[in-house]
């Protein structure tokens, strides 16, 4: 009997501790937000700067925090306004080329009005006689043809040549960003289609023979979309770089299904239009 009450007490206490820990975490987060808001406000900034003459320890700390916050805010502002931002990295490798100086490029990507984890490209200068750049590290997915773009816009210098090939970092960044955006838009299209058809959550029952039951990306670059209907028809949709549907075919149990293909895709058109038609045909 006593042990039972003890156990109950332990449970209650455990719950209470978990609650309190949650509260602590929430309060700490709140404190951080408040602190950064206060220190970012203009009156408090001027206050801190005025009192910077006094060399007390807390003042120094405040000033340091202020500087950090200012730098961070500037960086955030640049990141919000500009899809590509540059920064400096130090390569920790003691044998790194060019004393570890690395130029970092940050490519912002967005999805459903949210900032995603940006992609990074790091460049260094490994060549002894020229200041040409070379890609050092990157976090791009394999679908983006970084190697090809680098070979086009950042060719390595050749010492035997009289006039070395010129590198165009600006053009490289532009085309690379374009490729990244295209890739993300293509990914977004198939995700949108899946959401429009209600395939992102498992629903059972209400599937007629003409409804689409599966939407998948069929290749590395996300240029092909694989469709499966409830009556075991299969479809494949191919789009080009700019999101124009170039090919579309549906195979049924007894050969090609020309009728549905025609009704969904009769002339070259944008992928969005085809997706809208697919949605209508699937829900009707």
């Amino acid at each position, binding site marked *: 009997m006593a042990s039972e009450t003890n156990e109950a007490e332990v449970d209650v206490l455990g719950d209470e501790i978990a609650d309190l820990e949650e509260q602590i975490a929430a309060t700490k987060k709140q404190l951080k937000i408040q602190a950064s808001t206060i220190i970012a406000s203009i009156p408090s900034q001027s206050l801190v700067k005025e009192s910077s003459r006094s060399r007390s320890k807390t003042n120094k700390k405040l000033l340091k925090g202020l500087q950090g916050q200012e730098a961070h805010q500037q960086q955030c502002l640049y990141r919000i306004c500009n899809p590509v931002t540059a920064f400096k990295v130090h390569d920790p490798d003691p044998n*790194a080329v060019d004393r570890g100086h690395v130029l970092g490029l940050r490519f912002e990507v967005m999805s459903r009005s949210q900032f995603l984890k940006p992609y990074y490209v790091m460049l260094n200068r490994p060549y002894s006689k020229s200041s040409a750049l070379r890609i050092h590290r990157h976090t791009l997915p394999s679908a983006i043809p970084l190697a090809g773009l680098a070979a086009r816009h950042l060719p390595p210098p050749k010492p035997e040549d009289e006039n070395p090939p010129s590198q165009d970092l600006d053009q490289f960044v532009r085309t690379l960003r374009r490729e990244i955006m295209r890739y993300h838009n293509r990914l977004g299209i198939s995700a949108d289609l899946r959401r429009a058809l209600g395939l992102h959550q498992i629903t059972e029952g209400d599937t007629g023979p003409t409804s689409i039951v599966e939407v998948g990306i069929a290749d590395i670059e996300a240029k092909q979309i694989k469709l499966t209907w409830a009556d075991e028809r299969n479809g494949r949709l191919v789009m080009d770089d700019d999101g124009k549907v170039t090919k579309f075919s549906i195979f049924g149990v007894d050969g090609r299904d020309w009728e549905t293909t025609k009704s969904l895709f009769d002339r070259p058109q944008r992928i969005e239009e085809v997706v809208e038609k697919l949605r209508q045909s699937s829900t009707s």
Partner: protein
Amino acid sequence: MAASIVASKCNQGTSNRCPSNGDGPARFLSRGCPEAFQVFPKLIGTKAHYGEDESAFPNSTPFLRARTSEEEEEEEDDDEDSEDIYPPARTIEDLRQLYEDMRQQKGSKRDVVSRILEGDWRHGLTLYQLAMADFAYLDEHPTSQKWNAYQILPLQKPSHTEDEQLLKVDKESLQAPRFHPSTFLQNLQDQVLPDVKAHYHFHRLQEFPLLLLRIFVIDSPYNSALALSSLDQSGTVTNFDASRTIYLAFPDGSPSLYTTKSQGTGSAGTGESKSLQNLIIDGVPKALSRPMERYTVKSTSITTRNLAALLDMKGPGRGNAAGGGWSIYADEKNKQSPLDAILPTPPGSREQSASTSSRKRGAPLTQSQRDRKRARAAAQSRFGDSASISDGKGIERFEVVLQDPFPATSRNRTALEANQEEVSEDGEAQSRPNHRRSKVESVLQQAVQDIDDVDDVNEVDTSFSHWTPMLKVTFSGPHVFAGIRQLVEAGIIDGKRMPGWMTGEETVTKGAVQRGRIRGQKGSGL
């Protein structure tokens, strides 16, 4: 019977049966199913609808009692085949129940295997079933195979004016190869020589996002079931022993290819299996290519047993060219939206480790504590969040050939210089163990192939001014880089002076080190 089979170009049919009295299938099963009772649903086929007629799954029909016997006589018939150790079941449902019972009773593996071979599949197991048994094994032991990674690269379009047969890699191409399993398989079958008879099977592993192709090669020109019988007419040669299994894996969303070394069930020369592997590897780029779109495969100096690590280093994610400390940029969890105004806490700062913060008001740290803290911070700065022992991405072997001259101190410099010529000559003439030597050379050869820029070649000529012995370092263990990280954290390796290749940031498992960097790999190797 023997006269009716002819050599043909077709491949081994899925439903061809291997006689169960040979030891080939037994070897497969006893390896393929550590939990042999679980293999039953796999043997019967995953898509089969139980209870329907057996013709629905011709690839895996078990031996059942004939249906012709009258229903009323069933009970009396029970002792009819009493001499049969494994009386055949009446329906597939019965059989399923039987294996389920055996599973619950925890019967021994040998019992189950012998029941499968001598009872329910006494008329032989099909190649399909052998493939399923192999995949069952691979699902449970994903590290049982050693994988080599290859990169799929586009080739330049051949020009009509030149007659050159040698095609170059098109470095400026923006195309990614497109992989379509059935087309690929069709083309591959055309490429493989007609005297090799193989059985192909596609499979998806449960845990990893990749498509596996199992190629089971039988050394026989015939594609009938007789080719699989363990005894041929002369009664001596066993074809099954000469069979080989090779896996090809195509990761989703990445232009790479993983292969395993071919594995035989019997004993055959290593040279033969190597040539078979080369044959397959040669066929792969041709099978991937299409008119006006040619591809080649290039080895990437990554060899590991761990598929998760392989997918991390040559897969669809962000980590392909950002290993080691650079992985903080590839980490998906750490988002850092610019709309978030809170100053991010740098990794390793005091606020992050809240549990130790209580100590800061206490007694000042002792020297050893401070050293440990510094070592841990150094490890964090070099490895980032990578190379933790529990991330499951451990490679088990990392080999480098060091080509840097030995550091010359003032004391030994004169001696070294005097010795130098002698030693370098010795190095050539000395009779080293042959296989060791060849391994070192293969790594070097690979490194030379990797070098693509002229600047690097110039460096090579100037650096041999000091004593440079042929030195190869091999790290091995369950998770090599996590081990190095732990050594750094323990203060045994100086985290600041440690060369970059020891952090695993180059994403290779073998290479040649020159000037402290992996050669040809100045960066991501693009």
